[in-house]
């Protein structure tokens, strides 16, 4: 990006390479960042912003009444990617943050968020991120969020993201959320209201292992004429972990809604799926699908006939499933 596009840099001394190894690794895992991003960004580490840049099109401002930031994306913006990752490396930290995105009319933007926790202690580290998206008419948003935890202690890594989406007329939002590994407890809440012609596409991927538990809860109000939502969750539950999927689609107008939960259950894990669809209009077309099961034996056999061991075949199938 050209230098003149940088509107302001709040912390000019910030250098990603100066971050301690742990933090740098986390940023790479959750946001693919190995260098200072070109364009707008806000990097939050252990409860404070350690680096920020705004551009002509994207302004990031600290909230005055509560922790967090407001992100303003100018109408008509194109080709911008905004990074807002959060990392926690101090044990026992409880981090609560509110981020509000104001996406101007006809803007096209990609937002890369995510949270990485490194916890070697025996106390709980926790990040509760509350994100609100106010998406203007004809705007196009791609939101990518990755959650990841690591550390050698018994302390749990907890992440409870809440995402509230208001989609304006004929706007489009794609959410791609992934919980890679190491998150002991998560309660994901997503709420969305769609205006006329608005489209929402959600793709969620979750893997739990050990004694982890994950709950994911979607409620989508299809208010607008011609609005549509597609909520797809793919998950793998291993060891003694537990997962629960709730999806509630409400068709309040002429609309299309589809929710799908597809889960692989392994070992002693437990997965529940509770899809709900409500047609409040005769013009609403709503579908839900849910499938939970172990890895198909024939899939393992096919990969084993190609020379993989059963364990390698299992990993290959899971990698593909969550790709």
């Amino acid at each position, binding site marked *: 990006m050209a230098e003149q596009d940088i509107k302001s840099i709040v912390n000019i001394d910030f250098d990603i390479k100066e971050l301690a190894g742990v933090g740098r690794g986390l940023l790479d895992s959750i946001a693919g960042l190995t260098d200072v991003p070109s364009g707008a960004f806000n990097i939050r580490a252990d409860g404070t912003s350690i680096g920020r840049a705004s551009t002509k099109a994207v302004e990031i401002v600290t909230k005055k009444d509560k922790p967090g930031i407001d992100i303003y994306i100018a109408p008509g913006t194109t080709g911008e990617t905004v990074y807002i990752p959060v990392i926690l490396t101090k044990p026992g930290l409880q981090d609560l943050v509110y981020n509000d995105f104001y996406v101007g009319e006809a803007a096209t933007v990609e937002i890369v968020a995510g949270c990485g926790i490194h916890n070697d202690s025996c106390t709980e580290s926790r990040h509760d991120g509350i994100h609100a998206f106010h998406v203007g008419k004809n705007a196009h948003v791609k939101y990518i969020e990755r959650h990841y935890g690591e550390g050698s202690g018994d302390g749990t890594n907890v992440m409870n993201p809440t995402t509230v989406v208001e989609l304006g007329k004929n706007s489009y939002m794609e959410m791609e959320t992934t919980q890679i590994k190491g998150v002991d407890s998560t309660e994901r809440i997503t709420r969305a209201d769609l205006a006329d012609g608005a489209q929402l596409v959600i793709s969620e991927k979750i893997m739990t292992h050990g004694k982890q538990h994950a709950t994911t809860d979607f409620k989508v109000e299809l208010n607008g004429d011609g609005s549509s939502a597609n909520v797809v969750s*793919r998950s793998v539950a291993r060891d003694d972990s537990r997962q629960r999927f709730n999806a509630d689609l409400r068709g309040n107008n002429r609309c299309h809604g589809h929710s799908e939960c*597809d889960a692989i259950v392994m070992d002693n894990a437990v997965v529940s799926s509770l899809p709900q669809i409500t047609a409040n209009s005769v013009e609403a077309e709503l579908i839900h699908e849910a499938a939970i099961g172990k890895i*198909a034996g*024939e*899939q393992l*056999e*096919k*990969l*084993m*006939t*190609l*020379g*993989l*061991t*059963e364990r390698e075949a299992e990993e*290959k*199938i899971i*990698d*593909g*499933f*969550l*790709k």
Partner: protein
Amino acid sequence: MLKLVDVSFSADTERGKKDILKNIDLESGDGFTVVTGPNGGGKSSLAKVISGLYRPTSGRIFWKGQDVTDLNITERAKAGISYAFQQPVRFKGITVKDLIKVASGKELNVSEACEYLSAVGLCARDYIDREVNASLSGGELKRIEIATVLARNTDFAVFDEPEAGIDLWSFNSLIKVFEQMRERTHGAIMIISHQERILEIADRIVVISGGKVEKQGTKDEILPGLMYDRTCPRLDGINS
């Protein structure tokens, strides 16, 4: 190369134990061996016993002189035995390229992976990044299944009814694939098939019926008898 000595296989069914294969003695040398016979005769079970998906109840299986009876599926695959499923398996998220890469056992660039797809008559560019899932037709899946076996490049491969579940147009191009394979192969290929056109490219034919080898020999020895047997006896009666 591949030798089955007195191989039997029984399976548990709702009606108790059923003998599927009974004292099979079989040898497959270099070239094309086509295994044919009536439905339910045990042909697919034979393929699964060879590839390790089924364990024989008794008897021994030798591959290049080594007793492989107790080797599992992976070990047999690594020993150089390949198997093409009658019903190709579908995956969520695994692409054609992923599968071919696993089959070849090494890192492949796109053009190398594409060679195997071109060999089975698929326009590689259109398929390489597609998921091996229900969006592909039966004929497409079948050809991808064969491509994975080609990518393994082993000395022995058994194909279980490659013609099953595909349309006539796909079948014609599939025959071409096998004819080409017939010309190029240096190892042994076993095809389980009912199709006359596949029988015609056989070096050897084995007829399995009721779980037993009914007859085996060269194509010239077996094929004429098979064609005769296929005439409906009742119609013969009317004509005479």
